[in-house]
């Protein structure tokens, strides 16, 4: 059979995100692929330069629907460091709890998606049901299921009551039991082993060379984990280990993720049980001094880096977001070559791609159906002109 071009995305049941792969396949084997991310650039970075820190936080939270806390924490951390303020321990712990709950629900979601991609819908249904427990916990704590909006410059927005802590603790045993079950399934379930073993393999050298981050890197035996390398929040206090695996294939990445859920459960339990007393925020100055910082954060998908530069006002000069997905694309393109056509979804999903993180600039107008980039002031002006009485 001659070479055929299989175009996957931007509309495809396997990838519900705006990305396009042109896959050149020879029969069922992939020869090479081309990648196009240019469908949904939303202009978050430009927009972030045009508003003050308080307004930037909710904006950055909307960079991604899954790791929303990651972005706002990374940014808040960076600004706090530039301002040289220390957030209270209770705020650090609360941020950690939310961060780890977020990691848990992200990994459970991923496990379900990976199972769905190999047609194993039972596991998909089960993990998503258990993910609800995590999301309920977060909702009880913050009021929101997805965009928690917990962070403020200088601390967190709302405190945890003892009742919330107990409710969260009461949910943990069941979750632990379920996650142990998933660990068993990942290690022994026959069709999952068939589909995951040896697929999309990256050796340790390749993983280093292509700059992978997060579970993708750790599955290849690289123990980079920002939480240990550059401890932030309460990760220096809590007992936990960096999870690595030597398989380097999708199977390894799955194992790393389910083990990470177990570690997250431990961290959450520790933080809930040892929640320090005290204030949840300190007052932060309006303006930040001139400075620049590379704020690193271990998002569920890997290392997230916010490069922030301030210019002495209440706005940032530049915030440069490098998402883990962008760092992992290179490795995906490399390990897809010579693989089976049937394995594309699994390999691509194995890095847990998050396209909304990766492309960050565009605004589509509902009425004219045209895409364009507009400034925040323009948005406000337009909003006011459209709804004069509401503003």
């Amino acid at each position, binding site marked *: 059979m001659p070479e055929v071009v299989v175009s996957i995305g931007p509309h495809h049941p396997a990838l519900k995100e705006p990305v396009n792969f042109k896959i050149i396949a020879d029969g069922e084997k992939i020869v090479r692929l081309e990648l196009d991310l*240019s469908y949904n*650039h939303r202009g978050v970075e430009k927009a972030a330069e045009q508003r003050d820190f308080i307004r930037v936080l909710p904006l950055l939270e909307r960079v991604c629907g899954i790791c929303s806390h990651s972005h706002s924490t990374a940014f808040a951390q960076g600004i706090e460091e530039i301002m040289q303020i220390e957030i209270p321990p209770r705020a650090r712990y609360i941020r950690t709890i939310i961060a780890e709950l977020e990691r848990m629900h992200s990994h459970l979601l991923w496990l379900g998606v990976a199972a769905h991609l190999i047609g194993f819908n039972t596991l998909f249904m089960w993990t998503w049901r258990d993910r609800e427990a995590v999301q309920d916990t977060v909702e009880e704590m913050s009021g929101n299921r997805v965009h928690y909006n917990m962070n403020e410059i200088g601390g967190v927005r709302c405190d945890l009551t003892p009742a919330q802590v107990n409710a969260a603790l009461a949910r943990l045993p069941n979750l632990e039991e379920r996650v142990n079950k998933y660990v068993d399934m990942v290690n022994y379930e026959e069709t999952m082993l068939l589909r995951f073993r040896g697929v999309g393999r990256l050796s340790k050298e390749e993983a*280093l060379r292509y*700059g992978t981050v997060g579970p993708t890197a750790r599955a290849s035996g690289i123990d*980079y984990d920002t939480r240990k390398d550059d401890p932030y929040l309460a990760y220096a206090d809590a007992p936990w280990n960096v999870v690595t695996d030597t398989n380097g294939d999708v199977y390894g990445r799955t194992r790393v993720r389910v083990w990470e859920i177990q570690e997250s459960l431990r961290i959450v339990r520790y933080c809930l049980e040892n929640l320090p007393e005290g204030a949840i925020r300190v007052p932060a100055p309006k303006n930040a001094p001139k400075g620049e910082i590379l704020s690193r954060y271990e998002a569920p998908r890997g290392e997230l880096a916010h490069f922030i530069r301030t210019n002495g006002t209440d706005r940032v000069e530049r915030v440069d977001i490098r998402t883990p997905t*962008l760092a992992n694309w290179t490795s995906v393109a490399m390990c897809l070559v010579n693989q089976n056509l049937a394995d594309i979804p699994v390999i691509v999903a194995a890095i847990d791609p998050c396209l909304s993180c990766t492309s960050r600039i565009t605004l589509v107008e509902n009425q004219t159906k*045209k895409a364009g980039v507009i400034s925040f002031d323009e948005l406000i002006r337009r909003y006011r002109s*459209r709804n004069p009485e509401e503003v």
Partner: protein
Amino acid sequence: MTGPLTLESIAEKMKEFGVSEQARKNRIRVTTTPDKVHDTIRTVQAMFGFDRLITISAVDNTRTLELIYHLTGPHRIIVSIAVELERDQPAMPTIFDILPPAGIYERQIHDLFGIVFTGNPNMKRIMLNEDWPADEYPLRKDWKPDPDTFYGGIKGERS
């Protein structure tokens, strides 16, 4: 590499490439010139094992365009190599040949800031739509959205 790896030893070595300063407890910032970036990265790779590119940040400070390469390694020290480029016709030698993941960051910066990375084999659009005007770089400070123009230069009727 001689002796234990310390921040001082790296900072000392970096002096020959440019101004070196310690930014934070485990971070070193080196300010250098565009033609030395390649050598600097090769040196830190060879001598100190900085094998991992965290990201390439680009900043428009209205006078020049800055690029900052953040590298780290198994010792978890971060070295940030900063360069400044001219605003008109900015060009920069690629580091794609020594650090493959740089390719995708360079393409992104090319899209958003218009810096051309000479030697990068695949300098195509990645972030912006294919019908985005060729000479507009939205993250530059002097870029303002034209109120009458939408993507691809379509003159739009405003709602």
